[in-house]
């Protein structure tokens, strides 16, 4: 009789542990994104212009270089900051000067930003300057979008593809 009670007790322990594992393996639900909202994700990595134009080396400068490193041109490694702006319905929601990555400042500048916005119609303008100019933008794209609740709109940038890509 005692043994039967012990087996019953063991069964209760096993059931309780199984229920504990089974429940917390997927519950309670976690909601990380508010209802009725959409998301705009601005993300890209892009190398801006070099801080100075490449120039031709003089014959004397070339002669000073080790034979296996002689080349006609020299370019600064460092890149200028990239200026990025994102307008939503006429309001600037993101405005940043992004430095190049890398120890020598020669890598691409990168951005990865998320914006939670109400679902519905919106006008987006994305701007970018990657030149040595001090003002203005050499890339600008305007897009009217209808964002559904829970939609994720990615704003990418590819210079080869002509600029900003909304997808």
């Amino acid at each position, binding site marked *: 009789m005692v043994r039967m*009670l*012990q087996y*019953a*007790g*063991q069964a*209760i*322990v*096993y*059931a309780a*542990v*199984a*229920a*504990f*594992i*089974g429940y*917390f*393996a*997927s*519950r309670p*639900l*976690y*909601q*990380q*994104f508010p209802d009725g909202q*959409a*998301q705009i*994700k601005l*993300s*890209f*990595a892009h190398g801006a212009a070099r801080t100075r134009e490449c120039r031709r080396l003089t014959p004397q400068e070339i002669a000073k270089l080790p034979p296996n490193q002689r080349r006609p041109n020299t370019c600064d490694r460092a890149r200028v900051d990239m200026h990025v702006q994102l307008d939503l319905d006429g309001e600037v929601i993101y405005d940043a000067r992004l430095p190049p*990555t*890398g120890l020598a400042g020669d*890598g*691409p500048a*990168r951005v*990865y930003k998320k914006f939670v916005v109400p679902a519905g119609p919106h006008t987006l303008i994305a701007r970018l300057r990657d030149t040595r100019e001090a003002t203005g933008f050499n890339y600008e794209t305007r897009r009217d979008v209808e964002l559904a609740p*829970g*939609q*994720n709109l*990615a704003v*990418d940038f590819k210079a080869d593809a002509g600029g900003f890509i909304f*997808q």
Partner: protein
Amino acid sequence: MEILRAPLRFVFDRAERLLGLVFPPHWNPMLNLGALGFFFYWIITVSGIYIYIFFDTGVTRAYESVAYMTHDQWYAAGIMRSLHRYASDGLIVVMLLHIAREFALDRYRGVRWFSWITGVPVLVMVYVAGITGYWLVWDRLAQYVAIVTTEWLDRLPIFGEPIARNFLSPANLESRFFTLMVFMHIAIPLIALILLWIHLQRVSKPRINPPRGLAIGTLASLLALSLVHPALSQGPADLAKVVGPVGLDWFYLPLYPLLENWPGPVTWGGAGALLLMFCAIPWLPPLRKPPVASVDLPNCNGCMRCFNDCPYNAISMRVRSDGLPFEREAVVEPSLCVSCGICAGACPTATPFRRASELVSGIDLPDMRVAELREEIETRCAFRKGEPRILIFGCDHGVSLRGVDGASVKSISLRCAGQLPPSFIDYVLSKRLADGVVLTGCAENSCHARYGIQWTDARLARERDPMLRARVPRDRIRVLWAGRAGRRGLDALLRQFAHDLSELSSDASPVHTPDTRERPKELVNG
């Protein structure tokens, strides 16, 4: 740290005792946490191999292949998937309990730092393996895990291009990333297994398999859970949509909401600080280590009992170096010795009956020698006449003996129950120093020095050398393995034992007719 350890110890003591009501001592899950961890690992491995047969690693086919397993082949691959999931969760549960229990019982400092430190990367590896596993299903939970993980990694300024861009939109998604995840999900558990092997290197005779009954019960409960509540996917991932409410696995992903919402320096700093603290715990504060066991070569005949009984591989047997006619001698490795004294309890020369020569055993604790133990017994056994006289040998880590001493009860404290050579019980009873002897210690299967209880039981049952002589009346011996929370049980046992002793004939000698066949044969100087 004792402020933290004491309440945790109380909780574990209670849990062990509660589970002890329905489980036999060797089946008690709380006393088999490490072995259960291994058992879950093997379930995960077998089920993982099976579901890998049906899994498609392509990003567009991964979800479909998992759906096929779950719904079309629910009776085999579906159950295996659920077993894989729930055994992984079980692994986390027993690992965390194992860590907390070792901490509560102060079994992580001193020479045990090695097992603690090597356990830290195992914990990290198990979490990483679990997280990559969730990734592979490529459902909405996988999407959430992939995005939060990569965004968190991107907060370290080491990637030229944000790796979270791989999940920017459906157009950015590539199967190559999935191939990497599959590789990691297989490679990391294998690395964890190697680390587990290292984790056990300083533990002799580690218990890596749970008792059969416990294993069957555990597997049956996981199978029942898999049938009643199978693991399901949470809808296909869609990078064009934000993940809505998601069912997190709270065993693996409890910190994900924090990783998502807290700043990078806080989460990375916190993770680094937590890891550092885990690694530093064995020295917060360091254990004040008592002197380690030492060998007295003139009294060591190389019998290997100490070598066989040491729970920490701290004793090795080497070629005799002193010219005595024995093959081997015992050598103690100080960095591995925990000073539990089990070796002294195993030494056949540690017999209190020796009077012709000084009582020096072949191996002993320098600050707690068997000669001092004999002296203490003789001093302590000054009882008032009239009542049954009881002498308690109590392990420091077991039942508290504070206040137990009285007119008819005396106690002697030991590092471990296994430190007591059985001949001392014979000595107490045959010399009529007491009418009865009580041995107490840690809870059964929960010995602080791992094997003190097991070896003591075997010595008393005459199953392991050095054995308690057959002439010693067993009705004058009581054993209580109850842990620190067992004081009430000890008091009850003492009352009953006193009653039992008083019923035994007062004329009867506590010791039966001497049996010369039982005399220790291995005494060097005896």
